[in-house]
Structure formats: structure tokens, C-alpha cells
């Protein structure tokens, strides 16, 4: 028989509705209050936990792994290919989607089944913050949203101040090494780099442009930035990278100027601010007091960065 969802509260009374416009411009009728949520993107799952309403989260995707408690929630499938049946079986009041992670078809299908779906689509760090605030408002926890966003904004402003006197570092953000893929200038990751006192040398309007190593060598970025999942321990084997032809031509590789930050930078969620802070420390150690260990190797730096990211997690 159908799986029963007894952990989270179910609705007994007909709801009021509130019409909002989501971040893709669609009008969504959200029932009030929102008691059962299904999240279709890891960033949204993280945001729900950050707002403290995780007991209203009825289900999430296979990729929602942060915080670890999210792994225990009922799963509805992947971001591109969730099971509509599973979603329906969880009787959500609202489904949260991310334009960068989910398909329009899924949202339209839910609409046909009379399940409201609200989509987010932040392109900058400021938009991530305001998106969090709007979500909190729609989900009925404006106070939690206000305090969370105030904290994020405070930290970002603090960073701005510290980095005011330092020139931004020119960096290459490496999404993948072979083929060499980086991030476009209109992505929130590029904006996160800017907040950390860095500029991406890749000037492309595509989301994940594939670039040629030659072009990178010509540009000679000061740092190579990598995002690591702290669960897997190992990163791209940086020593092996250093001995590969072509890569050797990069000063950043010869001088081992690598910055490794947590994977949080890939998710448009509150935790990205920690990753930004971490990156700022690695790129501009002189701006932070007390000064970071001057003789530290890249490996130590990354471990430090990872543990800081963990401790800054909400």
C-alpha cells in the first residue's frame, strides 16, 4: 500500500492561499501555513535547515547531503529526474525548486497536478541572501529569515572592509580539469569570488564554459581555486596536476598557489558565505589578524579551510 508519512504533520483544515511571484516570474499560489515542504535542490534543503524549519521538510533529493541529517529525509529522486509519484505521495503543501538544478518540465508537471512549486534563481551573492529572506517570508518564518540574513550581510560587509585595501587576485576557478571547465561571469560563483577579493579570468556568458589551457597560460592567473567535497577527503590530485604538460606552464602551478575551499561555493545557500570567507583568507592572508601561519603548505591550508567551513556551518 502507499507509504504513510507520519513524521511530519498533515493538514486537516482547508487552507488559505497567498499569491506570490517566484524568481522565474511565475505566479504561485502558496497555501498558508506551509506545513509540508519537498525540496528539489540541495541548496534549498540547506536553506530550510538554516532557517530552523527542517521538521517541515517532508522529502528531498538524493543529492541533499548537508547537513547530514538531510540524508535521513525521504528521497524523491534526482534533481533532473525526480519521481512525480513520490512527490505526490508525500502530500507537500509547497515544492521548492531551483532553476539551475531542476527542469521546467517538472515544475509544469507539478502545476498540472495542482501542487504549487516555487522556483528560485539567484545569480549573485546578494540575490542568494534576498532569496533566503523571501523564502523565509513565504514559509512563515520571517523572523528567522531576518536574523539569518542580517548575520550573512554583516559578515559580507566585514569582508568588504577587510579587503578594501587589497587588490583583487586574478584566479581561475577550476570546475573540472579535463576537459578544462570553469564558470561564467554571470554565475553566482563568479560573484562569490568577487566577494572574496578575487576575479575570475574567464570572461564568458556561458554557465560552464570549456576553456583552453593555452588561454589560461596566456592570462597567467595568480591562483587556481578548487572546490572540494569534505566528505571525500582527497581533492583533484594537485601534485599530479603540477607535473602535467601545459599546466606546468602556469606560474600558479609552479609556485603551488592553490586555494581549496569547500563545496559550499557551488550551492546558492547561506553556507556559501563561509566558503567566501575561507577563500578570502587563503587569497589575502595579510588582511586578516592575527596573520595566518606564513609557512603553511597548501595541504595544511586546505585542511584548515575545510575544518573552518565545517565549524561555520549553520
Amino acid at each position, binding site marked *: 500500500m*502507499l507509504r504513510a508519512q507520519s513524521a511530519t504533520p498533515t493538514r486537516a483544515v482547508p487552507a488559505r492561499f497567498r499569491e506570490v511571484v517566484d524568481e522565474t516570474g511565475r*505566479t504561485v499560489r502558496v497555501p498558508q501555513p506551509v506545513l509540508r515542504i519537498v525540496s528539489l535542490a540541495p541548496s534549498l534543503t540547506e536553506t530550510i535547515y538554516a532557517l530552523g524549519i527542517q521538521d517541515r521538510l517532508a522529502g528531498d533529493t538524493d543529492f541533499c547531503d548537508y547537513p547530514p541529517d538531510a540524508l535521513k529525509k525521504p528521497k524523491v529522486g*534526482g534533481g533532473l529526474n525526480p519521481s512525480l509519484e513520490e512527490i*505526490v*505521495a508525500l502530500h507537500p503543501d509547497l515544492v521548492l525548486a531551483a532553476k539551475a538544478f531542476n527542469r521546467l518540465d517538472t515544475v509544469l508537471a507539478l502545476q*498540472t*497536478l495542482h501542487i504549487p512549486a516555487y522556483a528560485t534563481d539567484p545569480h549573485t551573492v546578494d540575490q542568494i541572501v534576498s532569496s533566503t529572506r523571501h523564502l523565509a517570508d513565504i514559509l512563515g518564518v520571517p523572523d528567522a529569515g531576518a536574523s539569518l540574513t542580517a548575520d550573512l550581510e554583516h559578515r559580507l560587509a566585514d569582508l568588504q572592509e577587510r579587503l578594501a585595501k587589497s587588490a583583487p587576485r586574478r584566479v581561475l576557478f577550476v570546475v573540472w580539469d579535463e576537459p578544462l571547465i570553469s564558470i561564467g561571469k554571470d554565475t553566482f560563483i563568479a560573484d562569490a569570488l568577487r566577494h572574496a577579493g578575487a576575479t575570475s579570468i574567464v570572461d564568458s556568458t556561458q554557465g560552464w564554459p570549456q576553456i583552453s589551457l593555452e588561454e589560461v597560460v596566456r592570462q597567467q592567473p595568480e591562483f587556481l581555486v578548487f572546490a572540494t567535497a569534505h566528505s571525500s577527503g582527497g581533492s583533484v590530485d594537485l601534485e599530479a596536476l603540477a607535473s602535467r604538460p601545459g599546466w606546468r606552464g602556469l606560474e600558479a602551478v609552479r609556485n603551488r598557489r592553490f586555494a581549496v575551499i569547500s563545496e559550499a561555493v557551488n550551492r546558492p545557500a547561506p553556507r556559501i558565505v563561509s566558503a567566501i570567507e575561507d577563500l578570502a583568507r587563503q587569497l589575502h592572508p595579510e588582511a586578516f589578524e592575527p596573520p595566518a601561519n606564513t609557512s603553511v603548505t597548501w595541504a595544511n591550508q586546505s585542511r584548515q579551510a575545510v575544518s573552518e567551513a565545517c565549524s561555520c556551518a549553520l
Partner: protein
Amino acid sequence: MRPLSFGYVLSRCALLAVLLFLVIVVALKLGAVPVSLYALARDLIRVALHQTSELSSDYRLIIFDIRLPRILLGTFVGASLAVAGASFQALLRNPLADPYILGVSNGAGVGAMAALLLEPHIPFPAALSALFTPVGAFLGALGTIVAVYFLGRRKGQIDSNTLLLGGVITASFLSAIQMFLFNTVMGRDLHGTAFWLMGDLSTTQQPIVSWVVRFGFFVAAAAIYTTASDLNLLLTGEKEAMHLGVDVRRVSLVVYIAASLLTGIAVSVSGAVGYVGLLVPHAMRWIFGSDHRILIPTAAFGGAIAVVIADTVARTVVAPAELPVGAISALVGAPFFIYLLRRRFA
């Protein structure tokens, strides 16, 4: 040594129809949310008796709003592709022909991408936005059908060799455009189109789309069936067929348009499901012979059965996640194709 009779065709189709029914029942039972046969039977009866208020609402939603429409869509997509494949194999006199050989699916892909690109910029009422992709895909398919028709003519009428060449070239060209769009412009919407390109039945369709798919199938398949004996003769050669009384020009035109429309409609709603249009006709020929009067209807049933099975596997094997149905048909289809090849030429 008895010739094909209508009774024989009917009896074989009845057998396949029963098999299709069984496959549908099993498919209804299986899914990310399991359902017992007893409950299913009871509720199907309730629906038949219009006692729908007795069903629990999300159960009803799952079975009748998600699963059953998806299975029915798979039925018609499979039938359309198999009939189109058999028709193109006859029209082009080429056993390797499949519904996509003349570029219809690539044209639909370009159309769908164009629709996705334009969608944010055109003020469409929300109710119609779900139609954007299928309509765009279908328009792309239509454009390709017309273009390839004009490319495929020789002395004013369709010539199978010229058609094949023109179609294959058009397909390559459109495929290159697809790749270009994919890599430069699509960016953030990459994921959606990738799924669609592989063949995907998971999106729920507007009622009008389902209606067009079913109606289009019956009309086009019927048109092709009226040329079934002509197709038998066409396989021995265009000149031979003409000397045996086949109006080659008319038959070529009818079959080309009807088979292309079948393909265009199927691809517009489900992307390019691979191998069904190529292999199901061969399998049916193997079992029932190559007389098109039995091949066309059995291929329709065979295609429906194949796609429903593939789609059921696609949505259960890594549940709750789903695979695109084209992945399953390719995984199963390719080895089966190799097996058929070896049998033929061993």
C-alpha cells in the same frame, strides 16, 4: 501455402492486444509508489462505474493523473515510432532506416530548443506555457519534413535514393545546429534538453496534446495501412512496382508524409526514443513475415509493448530517481540489434 488472410491478421493482432493489456496492467502496478493488484482492480472498476469520489485523492492522483497517462502516452509513442520505422524501411528500401533517418527528430530538437530560448521572452498565459516545448518541437519537425521533401525530389517526384541522401544530410546539419545551441546558448537549461534528447516520457501532457497524439496516430497509421500491399511491391524496386500497377508517386508521398508526421508527433512529446523504430519492425518481420498487411499492425502493437516495458524499467530500476526511457531502449536495443545481425548473416 496459403496467402495472408484478414482473419489471420486479426487473430495475431488480438493476441498482441492481450499481451499489451497485460503489460499495461503490470506497468500500472509497478512504480516508485507500489500498488497492489487487488487495490488496482477495485479502483479501476470504481472508475469505470464513475465512483471516483471513493478513491483516496492522492492515490487517484498517482494512478490516474500520473501513471496511467504516462503509460498510455508510451503506448502511442511506441506504436507511432514502430509504424514509422517499418514505413521508412520500405520507402527507402533500407533495412537500417529508422524514423529519425530523415532528420525529423533533429528538426524537432532544434524547434524545442528554440522554444525554450524564446519562452521567457514571450508573454504567454501560464496555462499555455506547458505547450511551448511540444509545439516548438512539432513546428521544427514540420519544417524538416517540408525541407527534406523538396530536397528529395527528382524530376518532380520523390525518389528514394535522393530522399535518403537529402534526409541524412539534413539530419547531420540540424544535429550540428543542436550541438551548437546546446553548447553556447542553452547554458542553464542544458539539463532539460539533455533529458529530452534522450527520450523521456516523464512529463505530464496537457489533454490537448494527448488527443493530438492519439488522433494523429490513428489517422497516419490508417493512411499507411491503405498502402500496405503497394509497399510489398515497392520493396522489389520502384520500376518493378510501377509495372505491377503501383502508383509509386502517390504511394511515396502518402507514406513519406504520414510516417514523418508519426515521427514528428512522437518526438515532440517524448524526445527521441531510440531503437524502437528500427528494431521492432525487424522483430515483427522475423515472427510474422514481411508482408506489410500484417507487419504494420503488429509493429504498432510491438512498439507499444516495447516502450511501455522500457518506460516501466526506466522509472523503477533506480527508484525513486528515473532514467530517460531512451537510455533503456538503447541499452537493450543495441545488443538485440547485434544479435539480429548475426542471425541474419551467420
